[in-house]
């Protein structure tokens, strides 16, 4: 099926840009209709909104949508924009894809684009009283000095709707009414895994509604990238999702390499794949540990950390960093693998296979764990796709969303591994997906570790890297889902816009749906199994 023709049928004014990835530029007036068609039509069925990126094109403000069909696997990139910089308004697609809800709020927060028919047009990351929109190119960096007054949390929110005459009117929605018993869980809380804040409306122990508040660790990495050269931007990817540091950096390196058309030596691909998988094991051990701790068992937590240290030792030996490794660089890796690397990995894998049984004995098999995780926090497959909860969470709901299988990169099309998919969609399935994935990761490593080919570990790059004009998107399977990087380049040595598809934001967006009717303790267990990393959400 010719997608281009299809799009033109629905929205004839669409233009196509073919620099980098092919992009369809749709006028804002016909955009919503097109999106709805693309999603609902049987032969296109773009049911997965991979990424939603706000853009400041200079004269206009716009949004770029990356759509994907879970049924057919095809993708398309749409762009729409408005030239009204004073009062930009676009149509919301949050009724088509649930994940758009938070993403549009993010765009509103950064660019000031208001989405019509969005039920909750509040800022997502910044404080309500923030001046201006920081991601616009004309934003004055000094316009918001540090404000030390306590934040006032509004219980009201605005919605833009269109009345019968076609005028935009503002409507007020209530988040929590005065009679509700609202309790803050976070930002400083031992089990929100960082500084996430949930405003939770309770009825006794039962959760009626959860409103997640992000931005307590919003560091403006994407904005900073616009003033950094490409090698410098790499340094910040490690700090996004620090438990997928290798994978994040891998994604950005791959993107730049793809844009530049650099051929990467096979040795590098091997090393990167092994490192990615080690990182995955590392992250999943930490997931296990933290889940155990959240559920009140400190002992499994220390077991997890005990074994994680062995991976960290391997990392440190080769990359010189434990948590943040700075290993991948454009065109290869920072340094060749340590002479002991192969040996220590080979020593680690049988050890860990063995010790994993102990994990299952103490935690997985435990009846209390079963009671607390099974049947709790069910996320249906439809919701998972609509929210875009990739990674373990999606696979636990029966959505085979592994990027390593869908869009193979590095060595993943040459190794044999199974994609773990569960269908229950409950907390226990989410937990088991990760536990099983560790075994698969070990399988992948075992296939590669003995066959690392000789060769260069780096392609010499020019000191100043300039990416050709165009827009590019690459994604990798990070430890907790599909981590995508979107780059809009103007041919400069600085990226024009670099956006990371957060793996955690869809998870947080889905928390309200998952926890509804659960208890406080369930929220903690669900939070543990969703396995989000907050700096990755807030960026």
């Amino acid at each position, binding site marked *: 099926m010719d997608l281009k023709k299809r799009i033109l049928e629905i929205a004839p004014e669409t233009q196509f840009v073919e620099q980098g990835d092919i992009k369809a530029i749709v006028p804002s007036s016909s955009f919503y209709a097109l999106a709805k068609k693309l999603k609902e039509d049987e032969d296109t069925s773009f049911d997965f909104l991979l990424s939603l990126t706000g853009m400041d094109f200079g004269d206009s403000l716009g949004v770029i949508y990356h759509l994907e069909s879970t049924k057919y696997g095809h993708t398309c990139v749409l762009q729409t924009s408005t030239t009204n910089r004073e009062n930009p308004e676009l149509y919301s697609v949050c009724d088509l894809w649930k994940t758009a809800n938070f993403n549009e709020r993010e765009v509103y927060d950064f660019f000031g684009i208001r989405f019509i028919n969005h039920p909750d047009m509040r800022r997502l990351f910044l404080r309500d009283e923030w001046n201006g929109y920081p991601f616009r190119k004309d934003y004055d960096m000094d316009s918001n000095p540090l404000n030390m007054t306590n934040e006032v949390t509004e219980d009201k929110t605005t919605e833009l709707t269109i009345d019968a005459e076609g005028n935009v009117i503002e409507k007020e929605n209530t988040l929590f009414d005065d009679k509700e018993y609202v309790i803050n869980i976070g930002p400083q809380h031992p089990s929100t895994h960082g500084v996430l804040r949930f405003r939770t409306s309770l009825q006794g122990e039962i959760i009626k509604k959860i409103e997640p508040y992000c931005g307590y660790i919003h560091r403006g990495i994407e904005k900073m990238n616009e003033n*950094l050269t490409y*090698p*410098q931007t*790499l*340094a*910040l990817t490690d700090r996004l999702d620090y438990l997928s540091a290798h994978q994040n950096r891998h994604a950005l390196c791959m993107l730049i390499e793809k844009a530049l058309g650099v051929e990467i030596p096979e040795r590098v691909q091997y090393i990167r794949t092994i490192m990615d998988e080690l990182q995955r094991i590392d992250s999943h051990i930490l997931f296990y540990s933290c889940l155990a701790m959240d559920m009140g068992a400190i*002992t499994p937590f220390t*077991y997890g950390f*005990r074994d994680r240290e062995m991976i960290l*030792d391997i990392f*440190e*030996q*080769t*990359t*010189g*960093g434990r948590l*943040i490794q*700075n290993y991948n*660089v454009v065109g290869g890796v*920072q*340094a060749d693998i*340590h002479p002991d690397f192969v040996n220590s990995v080979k020593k680690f894998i049988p050890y860990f296979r063995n010790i994993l049984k*102990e994990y299952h*004995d*103490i*935690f997985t*098999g*435990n*009846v*209390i764990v*079963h009671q607390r995780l099974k049947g709790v926090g069910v996320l249906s497959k439809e919701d998972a796709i609509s929210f875009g909860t990739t990674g373990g969470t999606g696979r636990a709901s029966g959505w085979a969303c592994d990027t390593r299988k869908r869009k193979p990169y590095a060595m993943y099309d040459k190794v044999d591994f199974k994609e773990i998919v569960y269908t229950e969609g409950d907390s226990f399935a989410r937990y088991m997906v990760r536990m099983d994935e560790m075994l698969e990761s070990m399988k992948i490593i075992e296939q590669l570790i003995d066959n690392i080919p000789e060769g260069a570990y780096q392609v010499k790059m020019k*000191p100043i890297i300039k990416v050709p004009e165009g827009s590019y998107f690459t994604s990798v399977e990070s430890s907790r889902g599909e981590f995508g990087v979107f780059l809009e380049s103007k041919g400069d040595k600085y990226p024009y816009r670099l956006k990371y598809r957060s793996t955690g934001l869809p998870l947080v967006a889905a928390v309200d749906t998952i926890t509804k009717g659960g208890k406080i303790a369930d929220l903690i267990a669900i939070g543990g199994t969703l396995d989000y990393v907050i700096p990755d959400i807030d960026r």
Partner: protein
Amino acid sequence: MNNFCKYFDSFFRGLKTLLVGLKTTIKVFFRKKITEKYPENRATLKISDRFRGTLTMPHDENNQHNCVACGLCQNACPNGTITVHFETVENEEGKKTKVLTNYEYDLGTCIFCQLCVNACPHNAITFENSFEHAVFNREKLVKKLNRDGSTVVNKK
């Protein structure tokens, strides 16, 4: 009746899993502990050579370093950790060269990304694996990497 059986069945099954858990922990209880005794083992502590603890400028026995104060590292640094102070002097042949006076390095904001080391064409700076840097005073973290009275190695 079926419910009744199920009740007992789940009860004993549950009991068994609990006992398995208890068995696992008691095994670990008697296992050798893996704790590394940090301050006591300072003498024997092995830290990977590649570990990046702090930036240093190696000096040879003549108190000479390799830095020509070109400033490439300063440009490569993403967050202004390095400031190269230099003065321009004329040498005997009348050629103006930069001479390093103070290589200022702020350990407090360094992110150990290795871009400066990669950028340096003369291998003048490198990362060292020491890690005991905690201080009481923020200013103490801003370090001068070149030693007093050091000079640049003469390249033939």
